[in-house]
C-alpha cells in the first residue's frame, strides 16, 4: 500500500510545487489523477521517486509501511515503486534488452535473489513483448533511441512488466499512443494488475479510463488534491472541464 501524507515539495530554487498532497492507494486499487497542465501531477511522481530537482519540505511517503523518503532513487524503485515517465529520455548506446536485464538484476540483488537465468529472462521478454505486440527493434536498439513518442510509452510499459512493481505510477502513458496502441497497452496494464498491486494513472482523457477502469478519480490543482470521487468524476471533468471545482 502506498500512503502519501501531507506531502509538500519544492524545486531546489524554493518554488513550492506540491502543497500538501494526501493520497492512499491500497492493494488492488486503480486510481486516476487528473488536473490542468502545470498542476503538479508529474511533480508528484518525480518527488516521491526521488528526482534530484525536487526537495521534500514535509510530509511522508510510505510503501507497505516502509518510509521511502530516506531511500535513494534506486532503492525506492527496488522496493516496488515504478514511474512510467511522461517524457521518457533516450540513452543511445545502451541496448534496451541489456538495460531491462540490468534493471531486473538490480532489483533481484536488492531482494537477495540471484541474477536471472538466460532462459527465464528470455521467457519474460517473449511473454511481455508479445503481450504488448512489440517487435525485435525494442530489444536491440539503444534505450528509446530513435523511438517514436508512442514507442517510448510502450517501452515504459514493457519495463513495468519486466520489473513487476507493487505500485505503478503511469504519467500520461496514453498520450502519443495511436488507437490500437492504446488498446494494446491498456490490455497490458489490466493483465499485469493483480490483487496485491496497484496503479496510479495520470491522464487528461477519459479514453484510457474506458479501458483501464479506475476505482477512484482525483483532481490535482495547484499542488493539492482538491476533489476525489469515483469513475463518474472523470466523465464529469471531460464534459465540464476543471473550472467548476473550487479552490480549497
Amino acid at each position, binding site marked *: 500500500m502506498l500512503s502519501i501524507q501531507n506531502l509538500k515539495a519544492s524545486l531546489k530554487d524554493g518554488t513550492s510545487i506540491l502543497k500538501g498532497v494526501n493520497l492512499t492507494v491500497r492493494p488492488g486499487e486503480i486510481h486516476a489523477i487528473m488536473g490542468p497542465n502545470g498542476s503538479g501531477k508529474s511533480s508528484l511522481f518525480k518527488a516521491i521517486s526521488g528526482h*534530484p530537482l525536487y526537495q521534500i519540505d514535509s510530509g511522508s511517503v510510505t510503501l507497505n509501511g516502509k518510509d521511502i523518503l530516506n531511500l535513494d532513487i534506486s532503492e525506492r524503485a527496488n522496493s516496488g515503486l515504478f514511474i512510467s515517465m511522461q517524457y521518457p*529520455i533516450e540513452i543511445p*548506446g545502451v541496448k534496451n534488452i541489456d538495460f531491462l536485464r540490468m534493471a531486473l538484476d*538490480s532489483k533481484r540483488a536488492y531482494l537477495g535473489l540471484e541474477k536471472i537465468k538466460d532462459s527465464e529472462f528470455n521467457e519474460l521478454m517473449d511473454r511481455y513483448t508479445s503481450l504488448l505486440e512489440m517487435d525485435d527493434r525494442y530489444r536491440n536498439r539503444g534505450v528509446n533511441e530513435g523511438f517514436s513518442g508512442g514507442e517510448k510509452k510502450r517501452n515504459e510499459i514493457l519495463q513495468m512488466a519486466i*520489473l513487476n512493481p507493487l505500485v505503478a505510477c503511469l504519467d500520461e502513458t496514453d498520450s502519443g499512443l495511436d488507437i490500437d496502441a492504446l488498446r494494446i497497452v491498456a490490455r497490458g496494464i489490466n493483465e499485469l494488475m493483480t490483487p496485491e498491486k496497484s496503479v496510479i494513472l495520470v491522464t487528461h482523457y477519459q479514453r484510457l479510463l474506458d479501458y483501464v477502469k479506475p476505482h477512484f478519480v482525483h483532481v490535482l490543482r495547484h499542488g493539492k488534491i482538491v476533489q476525489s470521487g469515483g469513475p463518474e468524476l472523470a466523465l464529469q471533468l471531460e464534459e465540464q472541464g476543471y473550472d467548476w471545482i473550487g479552490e480549497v
Partner: protein
Amino acid sequence: MDTKQIAYSRFTEIGLPKPRNDDWFFFPNAVLKNILVQPVTESSSESIAKEFDLGVETEKNIAALIPLIQTRKAFVKKIPANEQETGILKARDDFSHTLFHIQKGADVSLEILDNKNEHDFTAERLDFFLEENAQLELFFCNPPQKHNLQFRHIRIVAAANASIKILGVQQNTGCYRQSFDLFLNGEDSTVDFRLLNKLEDDTEAHYHLIIHHNAPHTKSNQLVRQILNGKSHVSYDGAVHVGKDCTEVNSAQLINSILLSEEAKVSIKPVLKIYHDDVECSHGNTCGELDAESLYYLQSRGIDAKKAEDILLQNFAVNTFSELNSSVGSKRILSAITNRA
C-alpha cells in the same frame, strides 16, 4: 648536411618554447627545463632526407625535431602498391624516428605501442607518406608507461584519395604531449581523428594538431572526448588550415569533456584559418557533468547511482568511436574500452 644536422640547427634556432608561446600555451613548460638535446653521432637518417621532404627547415615544433636529432637509427619501411599490412609500432629507444612510405592503393593498419623504457624523457616521431588511394589506420590504446615527459609527433602527408584514420585512447600517463601535422595534399583525401582521454591523478595529456587542407574536396573530422578525474589536465589545440583555391572542403571538430572532479581541467583552443569561402566548417565544444535526467532515469529503474554513472561514462567513451566501419583498430579500441571499465 644530413637531416640530423639540419634538425639540430633548426632546433638551436627556435630553442625551447618561451613562456606565452601559443603552441605550448597549456603545457607545463617548466618540465622542459632539464632536457638536454644533443645530436647522437652514431648513424644518421640521411638516406631518408633525399627521398622525402620532412619539412625540417621550416619546422616550428621542437617535438618534431628532437627525435630526428637524438635517434640512433631511423626505421624506414615501404608498403608496396595495393598490399595490405597490419602491424605494431613500438619504439625501443628513448628517441626514435620511423618512416612509412605507403604506395598507391595500399591498406595499412598499425597499432602504436608505448615505449617500454622507464626514462625521464622520451620522444618519438612517426612519418607517413601516403600515395594515391592509400589507406592508413593508426591506433593506440595500450596502458601507457609512466614517463616523466613523453613526446610523440606524427606527421602524415596524403595524396589524392588517400584516407587517414587515427583512433586513440589515452589513459593515465605522466606528462604527455602528442602533436600531429596532417597534410591533405591531394584531392578527396580525408582524415578521421578520434581521441578519448580517460585520466586520473595529476596526469597531463596535451595535444597539438594541425590539419592542412591543401587540396579541393578534402575532408576532416575530429572527435575528441575526455573523462577527467583527480587533478588531471587535458589540453587540445586543434587547428584546421584551409589553403587558397581549396574548394568544397569539409571540416568538423567536436570536443566533449566530462569533469568528474573539481580539480580536473580541460583547455581547448580551436583554430580555423580559412583562405577560401567554399568551405564547410563546424566546431563544437561541451563541458560538463553527466546528464542528470539520464542518471535519474537509470536509477528510477533500480540501477544504483554508481552503476548508473558507470553506464553513462562507458557509453560516452564508446560513442567516441561509433559509426566507424569495423576495422582492426576500431575492434581493438572498443574491446579495450569495454574490458577496462
